[in-house]
């Protein structure tokens, strides 16, 4: 099984090594794509797709495999940006924007803030368990099933239509009004729950309001 990447603790060496490693992996990929594009094997949208797909897969692998949790979070940003690129390719500019703003920006920043606030050690954290081989096997089986199902099925022809913000708003607030409102309910209960669970319990006899 894949050995975890042995990254040194010093930031400067880490950056150098990480950059080197990324370019060693990414450069051939980009070169191959570029050659295929130049020789006309790939159309422009396909070229952009494979570029973004590489970013998504690479970012996701980095998020899972890197031991340093901040590096893993940065890998997540890369994956989100790749997904945003694919959304753009599908002419869903709104989704692409949301993907960058909410996932690439908001969620990851929150994650990093969370790490800082909780004084999580920014050194390597061991997240291994005895189930790792089993999880690996289950993941492989699941991935195989997905790929099999997707290759096997005859999907409807992809027709990319640009959906304007206006139509999107109408769909979101009229047709999907109920899921939208229920989603706000999730936020409400999550907020209540977070406060209730995180609040320091008053000792018996102590006033609740203090």
């Amino acid at each position, binding site marked *: 099984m894949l050995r975890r990447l042995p990254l040194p603790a010093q930031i400067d060496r880490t950056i150098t090594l990480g950059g080197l490693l990324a370019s060693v992996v990414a450069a051939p990929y980009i070169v191959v794509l570029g050659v295929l594009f130049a020789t006309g094997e790939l159309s422009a949208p396909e070229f952009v797709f494979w570029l973004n797909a590489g970013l998504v897969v690479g970012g996701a692998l980095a998020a899972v495999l890197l031991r340093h949790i901040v590096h893993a979070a940065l890998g997540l940003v890369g994956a989100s940006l790749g997904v945003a690129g694919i959304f753009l390719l599908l002419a869903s500019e709104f989704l692409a924007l949301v993907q960058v703003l909410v996932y690439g920006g908001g969620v990851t920043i929150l994650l990093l803030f969370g790490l800082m606030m909780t004084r999580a050690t920014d050194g390597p954290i061991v997240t291994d368990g005895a189930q790792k081989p089993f999880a690996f096997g289950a993941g492989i089986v699941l991935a195989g099933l997905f790929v*099999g*199902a997707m290759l096997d099925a005859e999907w409807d022809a992809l027709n990319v239509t640009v959906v304007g913000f206006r139509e999107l708003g109408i769909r979101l607030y009229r047709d999907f009004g109920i*899921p939208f409102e*229920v989603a706000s309910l*999730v936020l409400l209960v999550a907020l209540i729950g977070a406060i209730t669970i995180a609040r320091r*319990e008053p000792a018996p006899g102590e006033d609740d309001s203090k």
Partner: protein
Amino acid sequence: MNLEAFHFIGPAIVLLAGAVLVLLADLATGRRACVRPLAMLTLAAAALYAATQAAADTGGQAFGGAIGVDRFTIYVALLLIVITAAVVVAGEPGLTRVAQRGEFYALLLASTASMMLLAQARDLVAIFVALETTSAVQYILVGLGRDARASEAGLKYLLTGAIAAAVLLYGFVLLFGIAGSTSLADISRAVAETGDETRLAVVVAFVLIAAGVGFKMAIVPFHAWVPDVYQGAATPVTVFLSAASKAAGFAIALRLFYTGLGGGDTPVSADWAKLFGVLAAVSMTLGNLAAIQQTDVKRLLGYSSIAQAGNIAVGLAAVATGSTLGPAAVLFFLGTYAATNLGAFIAVIAVGARVGSDELRDYAGLLRRSPGLAIVLVLCLLSLTGLPPTAGFLAKLYVFNSAVQGGEQWLVWLVVVAVFNTALSAYYYLRWARTILLDEPLDPAPFQPPAATNAVLTAAALGVLFFGIVPTPLIDAARSAAAALA
């Protein structure tokens, strides 16, 4: 969009408004005493609303077809309201570890509302959002409490739940890819026309969806969270999970598989029926074998609920026959199981509040210490085993009958496995009953549970006996609810 749309989700709106009121009342008065009556009042109002809908035979769709109301949703809504009401009325003695009563009752009401919306949802997006709301509230409810056990249970529930949600979403995405729509009606049409080339995608989709909702139904192999969560959570939360959450899980499974994947007449229905058949057999067997070894009654009831989920899933497998007999049997089972499980768990709360532990040996000689409590508990245990004249007997009979009526060989074998498992389960249910009735009490001091507990216990016992002797009203309701599914 018109006002009728809001009339359709009226009971859920009432519950959510009540949840907010409970929070505000808790904030304004700072007194715990006012929140519980307010929660009861809210539940009564919602029940009244749902009953009016039932009386007027309200039916229809709203919000672009994302939400519908019919006899099925009203049946599920009333069932959920009754379960929540029982938890609110009789749960108080089991809440010693939970300090925040206002939040507890508000979350309970919000969870019930989202489960009602879940049963009403007819669109994958609406279903997923409602299911996630339900789960989010339950993670919090499990984690409420002063001790590390509750926190651990909450975290375990959250982690496994998140994975289940992701798996469910994978399935939904595949269905969306096949049908090009998130509406269950469109999906049902697309699946009915499935040719060989998309067959694998449909099969993978329903396997993943079965895994996702199987988590809610707590069937093997998606059950690993059950014993720890049932034991770690405050007992009223455990009751709520075992009765309400399970009912909602089966309701959404019926909706997804019967309405969405086309009941008994699509090219894949025989496949998923067999899947549920296997899951049912494994759930029953493993649940019962594990339950035999338990000495903590909450863990025992946890494993027993896994085995019972297997029994209910026999009804899902029977859907392959194409008749509404299977869904009707599932709905009837859910109703009687709610009464039975509420009775057993509330007795456990009463004993736990008195003894301070949930060990099996503390039930020794309960008959001499608190005769009423003991008799109700034994009655519920008989019903869980499936012995006449209790409702549990008829529920099992009805579910097994729906499978045998199908006339398929493997369904008959499934029923054979189920009957064998009933004998297996009798061992630990009746062993518990014997401890209660015959053993010498460790502490002979008699005790009386609180009046509210007694009232709910009496209601549960009457329910178990009444539906065991005069099942027709509930069976008719379940039948018309199942007919509305198609």
